């Protein structure tokens, strides 16, 4: 039994299950699920901007971008409070992670 034995079993099971589920779905009347598209895109974009910014620019801009972009998902927008939220949260996470827990994260690269 090599390292590929178990993946092979799982792969084969997945294929069989996939075919079975596909056939079942094909035979019955479907419904198109209602899609939360705007939140999906906004959350994806917000989280992605965090990933792109955290190592390059630092934790404060990364958290700000996450909250500002992520907030685009909501129908009702209140920019004053969102900006305030982003500001408070980014400073707070910088204080907790860089200063108190001393993780190797910079606040803003080149500045703090």
């Amino acid at each position, binding site marked *: 039994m090599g390292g590929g034995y178990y993946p092979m079993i799982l792969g084969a099971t997945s294929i069989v299950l996939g075919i079975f589920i596909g056939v079942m779905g094909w035979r019955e009347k479907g419904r198109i699920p209602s*899609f939360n598209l705007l939140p*999906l895109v906004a*959350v994806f974009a917000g989280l992605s901007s965090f990933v792109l910014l955290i190592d390059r620019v630092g934790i404060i801009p990364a958290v700000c971008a*996450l909250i500002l972009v992520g907030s685009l998902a*909501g129908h009702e927008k209140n920019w004053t409070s969102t900006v305030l939220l982003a500001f408070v949260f980014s400073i707070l996470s910088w204080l907790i992670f860089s200063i108190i827990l001393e993780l190797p*994260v910079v606040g803003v690269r080149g500045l703090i």
Partner: protein
Amino acid sequence: MDLFTIGFPVALTLINVAYCFLGVFLGTFVGVLPGISGLTAVALLLPLSYHLDPTTAIIMLGGLYYGAEYGGSTASILLNLPGTASNAVTCLDGYPMARQGRAGPALFITSVASFIGAAIGTVLVMFLAPLLAKFALSFHSAEYFSAMLLGLVAAGTVGQGRRIKSVAMVVLGMTLGMIGIDTNTGVFRYTYGIANLYDGFPIVILAMGFFGVTEVINSINRIKFVAEVGDVSLRSLMPTAEDFRRITKPMMRGAAVGSFFGPLPGTGPTIASFIAYAVEKKCHKDEDRFGKGAVEGIAAPETANNAAVQTSFIPTLTLGIPGSATMAVMLGALLVHGIQPGPKLIVEQPELFWGVIASFWIGNIFLLILNIPFIGLWVRILKIPYKFLYPCILCMICIGVYSLNNSAFDVGMVIIFGVFGYLLKLMDFEPAPMLIGFILGPMVEQNFRRSMVITHGDFWALFERPITATFLILTLVLLVWMIYGSLRESR
């Protein structure tokens, strides 16, 4: 009694009492808020628990888990919107009670029922876990393999939703759990040359993606801001004597149902509460009272889900087999600390085992105080608009995952799992069985290989061991039942 000589001295140290309180407090908090489940909360605090002593970590995470069961009923009663999935059935009679102006007694009854359920569940853990551990001491790799296989199949077949889809999610979880270096042969599997994947990835990443991010995407613009949820003063809480007389027996039945489903792999508190409600309805001749504010209809499921939460610790701590997805995440926390739960845990780490059980008593008493005199606080929390809440949750997910390894790659994986998880949810694939597959998959493989080494590759030799044979036959029965059920469903 080991509980008093070992357990309480550990649980009553200042740091453990403080983290126990933190756990149950945050547990009630997220339980009250619709849109964050107990599992997401456990995953969010998992990075913090890495810095703690393992006993303290489990005390805190356990508190979160059972605390969420207390809080969840508040939203069910006041908003007709379950705080967590296992409180969904409480809406059926809890919300009508609130409409009739009896929100106070409903909140009081659910808290008392939760406490009774937790107490009965904890007593069962105290007595059954050592017994099961003694029985499991004779287990070898073959028994573990078959017990875990049964757990995996049960996770797929007993849960909610389409059984075949749950089984597919278990298999997906096992596949994801396999990623990384194979310990037996040193072969890299499914790493595609990405160095970050060589050691696999922790279960937190999967839980944060499939539960945290998915829940956020799913809840935005669906959870409405509530301006007025009614006044809940302490005086309005007291149920009548008639109520007390009516809920005694339902609570006992609920506790029995919960204690039965709690330790079973793959079932957990949600199924326990639904079945307890169904059982309760059958027990009364005047069935049509249910759904119109019957006190029995909130007492039974609330007792059941708390009993199920506490008893789900039995298989996790004595066999290392998680009874629910949340327990799978907690098992991941123990593994990070290098503790492999199993039958020897009670003997080798009595401080951990008895300390955690003692903390259940302390935590549940905290919860009783938090949920009856301080109920007004939680009612006010319900008014926090979700539009402010979800950016904070996203932020905690990102920073929590990033702090694990200081790796943006890990956060990237959470994003992929989150989006993928949302698409799967749209197609009615439940993510909970996947987490059980993820944590059990590698263990099943290890134990299978070890037992194959012992039997020289003869699979049928496994059937010569009576316990293994029993487990394997049960697995087979479940599989046949699942296939039969799926064929009937699709017709």
